[in-house]
């Protein structure tokens, strides 16, 4: 039975989440040097287009088809067979589309690890393999009836599926492709901070659809997810601002990075925690991710735009915080604080497996693509910048 209110709401949420992908493009594009601005935006659009097709061909079915041993979905919905205008509350087609925009966004976040040095042709091949072999199984585990769901792991809107997976995959990809030329020596300051903030704003805005829409209904749970999302974002922004202020100046890139850290951390928890729990979750996420970023810089790792520090580590923190702060009155499950330490244990197992799987499988895929066709542009192309080298375009003529 189709509910028109829920359908209207999820249609809008789907569109909101779609806007997050170009939002990531603008966010990342502003953070790189000007000669690679178009490249970062283009990678986001390529990720979205690529996954949109992969998703309807086989991705949706692998994620949400009938469970095979808790690991992957069957191919019963391949080419959208049996996915129609009917459904439970919302049309099956709409559920498919809502999940599709998540998958596209996730691949766009992974581009952080290869910023300013990836060959488009290799990214297309890598992206198809990655979304099929990493994203789809993870989506199945959490939401498609896989082992994590059977175990009782809580992931409301994608802490493991979207954030831990993209963050640790970006790290693996960065290790395979290697550092940018001149990393650590040359200045690589962001070329356009207002564009970073605009991209961040689109992410924050789209995240309301991401989290509230994950209720899959226009109801109180959606309202709770909406409210905790904003609280955690604000809390994360202020925490990062304060931490950066103590160490020097409260840069605006840090403020929006803190907001995203808060958003990442509340994502798995949005349907399980109270609005007041979102304050410590967001604030702690801001501090954890800021610390992870400093650690990444100290280690000399060129995971260029900090998907690992913010999405990876923020995702881990959020998944664990869900096991701590969950309360039965909101999502039907209690966490550690409400007398159910077992939930935290389940969350730890879920996190550990997702970290290992996404990092390990991505590393192998990246190695294979690198050996087969080379992941990286030539030194000369990297020097000129990918806007000209890959697209024949530039921000300034």
């Amino acid at each position, binding site marked *: 039975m189709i509910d028109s209110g829920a359908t209207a709401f999820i249609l809008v949420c789907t569109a909101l989440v779609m806007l997050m992908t170009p939002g990531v493009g603008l966010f990342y594009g502003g953070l790189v040097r*000007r000669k690679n601005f178009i490249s970062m935006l283009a990678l986001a659009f390529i990720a979205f287009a690529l996954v949109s097709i992969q998703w309807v061909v086989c991705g949706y079915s692998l994620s949400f088809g009938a469970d095979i041993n808790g690991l992957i979905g069957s191919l019963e919905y391949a080419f959208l067979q049996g996915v129609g205008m009917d459904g439970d509350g919302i049309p099956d087609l709409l559920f498919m589309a809502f999940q599709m925009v998540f998958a596209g966004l996730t691949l766009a976040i992974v581009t952080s690890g290869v910023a300013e040095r990836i060959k488009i042709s290799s990214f297309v091949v890598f992206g198809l393999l990655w979304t099929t072999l990493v994203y789809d199984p993870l989506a199945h585990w959490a939401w498609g009836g896989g082992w994590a769901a059977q175990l009782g792991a809580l992931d409301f809107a994608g802490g493991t599926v979207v954030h831990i997976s993209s963050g640790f995959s970006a790290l693996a990809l960065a290790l395979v492709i290697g550092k940018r030329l001149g990393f650590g020596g*040359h*200045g690589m300051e962001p070329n356009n901070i207002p564009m970073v903030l605009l991209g961040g704003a689109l992410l924050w805005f789209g995240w309301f659809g991401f989290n509230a829409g994950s209720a899959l209904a226009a109801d109180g749970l959606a309202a709770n997810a909406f409210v905790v999302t904003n609280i955690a974002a604000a809390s994360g922004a202020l925490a990062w601002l304060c931490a950066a202020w103590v160490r020097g100046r409260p840069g605006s890139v840090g403020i929006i990075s803190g907001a995203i850290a808060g958003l990442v951390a509340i994502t798995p928890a949005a349907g399980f925690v109270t609005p007041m729990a979102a304050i410590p979750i967001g604030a702690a996420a801001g501090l954890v991710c800021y610390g992870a970023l400093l650690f990444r810089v100290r280690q000399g790792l060129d995971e260029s735009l900090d998907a690992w520090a913010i999405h990876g580590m923020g995702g881990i923190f959020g998944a664990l915080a869900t096991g701590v702060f969950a309360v039965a009155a909101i999502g039907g499950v209690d966490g550690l604080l409400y007398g159910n330490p077992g939930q935290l244990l389940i969350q730890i197992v879920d996190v550990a497996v997702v970290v290992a799987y996404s990092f390990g499988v991505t590393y192998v895929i990246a190695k294979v693509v690198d050996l087969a066709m080379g992941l990286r542009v*030539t030194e*000369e192309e990297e020097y*000129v910048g990918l806007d*000209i*080298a890959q697209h*024949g375009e530039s921000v300034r003529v």
Partner: protein
Amino acid sequence: MKMVTAVVRPEMFDAVRAALEADGIYGMTVSEVMGRGAQKGIALRFRGKTMPVELIPKVKIDMVVRDADVERIVGIVRANGRTGRPGDGRIFVLPVESICRVRTDQEDPEEG
């Protein structure tokens, strides 16, 4: 007085500026420019086809300095702006006829 104009790689600018600062040279006017040298830019090759990149982004630093400082400053820019590969830039030294400070109308202040 002389005008020292250095055109350097954008990525080397921070090192050049820091070295000049360490030597007490603070005054400079900096512009982002596009340019090319004897190689006529860079030629990228894709599957047999050549794509010329005619103009490459550079940073131009203009400094008006005392005659006695010119050699030292040129040396600092050369030492800190060099990668050894084509495209490291050029340094031009020009005579300066006069300087007027806008704030005070003072002519020829003895400073760089």
